[in-house]
């Protein structure tokens, strides 16, 4: 992306040589991000399909296993991500309105909430580890059908793990964005990169909005 190489916050210096003008560059970047998100949908889709197949086959097992997940922590995380998406949307607005300080605050706020999400996730994973719910040699399950319960937890860790990787990457990108904002790279309404990262962050949020009920609320009476 050209903003990483040009030293000045002069608008014409932002246009990469393959593009005719800033409009074309912005449009291309946005379309590129949408297509990338489409590939991510298909990527997660494979895991969602696996979940669906096994939920259909081993419904009771899934219900029992799901009860071991903390609905409180999961719901908190859902709220955390939703608020972070709000911050992100406001950050895009701030960039559009050339409000540098506000932009930096909101970007850092989004990243911070991302970190909160990861912290809560870490607490959950740690508890699962201590409770011997992590699939592998140390997995223990005392009631019926440990084999398929292990499968549930495998799907749980795979889906939330893949999601967590995406959140982590997102946090990194947000911090870089905040740094660039501090250096003035998004002045004069060059808000496009912020908007594109916003798209990514909203996608990560939406994936969680699906994951939470499917994994945590299955056992909810």
């Amino acid at each position, binding site marked *: 992306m050209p903003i990483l190489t040009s030293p000045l916050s002069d608008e014409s210096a932002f246009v*990469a040589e393959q593009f005719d003008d800033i409009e074309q560059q912005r449009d291309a970047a946005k379309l*590129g991000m949408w*297509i990338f998100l489409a*590939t991510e949908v*298909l990527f997660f889709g494979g895991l969602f399909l696996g979940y669906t197949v096994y939920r259909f086959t081993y419904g009771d097992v899934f219900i029992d296993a799901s009860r071991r997940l903390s609905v409180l922590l999961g719901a908190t995380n859902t709220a955390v991500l939703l608020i972070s998406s709000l911050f992100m949307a406001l950050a895009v607005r701030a960039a559009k309105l050339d409000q540098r300080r506000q932009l930096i605050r909101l970007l850092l706020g989004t990243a911070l909430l991302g970190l909160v999400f990861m912290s809560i996730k870490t607490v959950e994973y740690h508890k699962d580890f201590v409770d011997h719910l992590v699939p592998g040699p140390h997995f223990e399950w005392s009631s019926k059908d440990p084999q398929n319960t292990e*499968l549930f937890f*495998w799907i749980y860790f795979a889906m939330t793990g893949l999601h967590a990787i995406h959140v982590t990457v997102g946090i990194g990108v947000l911090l870089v964005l905040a740094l660039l904002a501090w250096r003035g790279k998004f002045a004069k309404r060059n808000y496009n990169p912020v908007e594109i990262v916003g798209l990514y962050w909203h996608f990560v949020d939406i994936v969680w909005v699906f994951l939470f009920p499917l994994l945590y609320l299955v056992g909810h009476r």
Partner: protein
Amino acid sequence: MKTATEIDIKTEGQMARTHYLNVDLGLKSWLLTTDHKRIGILYLCTILIFFAIASVAAALMRLELLTPQGDLVTSATYNKLFTVHGVLMVWFFLIPSIPAVLGNFVLPMMIGARDVAFPKLNLFSWYLFVAGGALALWSLIRGGVDTGWTFYTPYSTTYANSHVILMAAGVFVAGFSSIITGLNFMTTTHKMRAPGLTWFRLPLFVWSLYATSLILVLATPVLAITLALMSVERFWGIGIFDPKLGGDPVLFQHLFWFYSHPAVYIMILPGMGVISELITCFSRKQIFGYGFVAAASMAIAILGFVVWGHHMFVSSQSVYAGMVFSILSFLVAIPSAIKVFNWTATLHKGSISFQTPMLYALGFIGLFTIGGMTGLFLATLAVDVHVHDSYFVIAHFHYIMVGGMVMAFMGGLHYWWPKITGRLYPEFAGKLAAMITFIGFNLTFFPQFILGYLGMPRRYHAYPPEFQLFNVLSTAGASILGIGYLLPLIYFLWSLKFGRVAGPNPWRATGLEWQTPSPPPKHNFKETPIVTGRPYAYSAQEDADLNLATV
């Protein structure tokens, strides 16, 4: 060696003094290039390495199959040979071939752009490809894989004693390379067309690359997840596909073929796009039914996503699912048929000449028609029960992928060679190689249809003696086919130094890529061209009246 007869050549001017090849010199300028043309060449060199390895594997297989007994290599080795042949040919040769080599080189120029939308991502995609290839080669060096390119479970997850995860990792990484290429091409086509270049004025090669990119972007992630799931089960013993661990082996097949069927359309659509360019240029005629050909590309891409179950008619899939997939498979054949009829009709009232690219194009139409028709045999439920997993299937897909796609790749390579290098290949040698390839190909693969209906299963190292005659014919054909591929390697290299200088437009073709010098400058166009009309604005009448031959 003469490059062409004097009366044929219409090359004006010389090679450009400064062009994309000599503007920056040195290894670093190549390894850090963001020029789509150089990246296309990087891909060309890399895929040739994998093509060579996979061809050697095929040669060894065909040698083994000369005799009914398994006497050349052990069973385990044979199984590794057909696996490496499939994995390398599919993922490391065919899928990148036309898109990443010819598409990278030609697409931006065809639409009047200076480069693709994301040049640095383009370079990154090549590095991912190399990294994936390195992992695959490492798996080979460590001893190879014997699961077949289809990695069916539970054999691959629980029973195989070979380096499955390493190979799967290589394919996984290379998959991201194709996703990025597809993303780049789609964005480029949407956003970077020259002024006046509306969608329906685009060359059909661009349409076919767009349809291919749609598949690359949507199908490949599913492959990535499937390979990851398979590797997790293999490494950690977690039951997803192995019934002994509570899994479902047929689920793997659904996930795998959901990607791999669309993948085979990745391995033919770009070839069809090239054929549209060649047929129009060498018959000096507007394509017949432009709108239908463009729409057919999109229809193939979309319908290709809903037919995967035709690989699973005898897998224990339900009879009703089989019927749904069968009718849909018949439907997806229709747009391909439409294209073949449109190409044929294009020849009517044209002014047809038979340079090497045209020979490959005509060969494509013949072999693709046969290959496509044999696909109907496989779509027909009752017949597929008999020929599934037999040499009939092998013959079918080689007719499409080799008789079709590879011929199209060769045709396109010959056609755009003067643009890429500034020089012409030797025409007589080109024609000779095209004909040797055509003959060798048919001799190799036609007998396999007969073998398949007789009942010879695939992936067989040894076979009953009554199958020997056709196996011998097939191996004989393969040796001829090999010569057909070696010749271009030799004369293309030769042409780099000694080939006739081509000038900007040796074929007098329409198309923006021919409005640049050969080889083109780094940024393709001095000024962005403006497009005012349809593509393929040839006039056969004019051409014939002036009694001109094309080059």
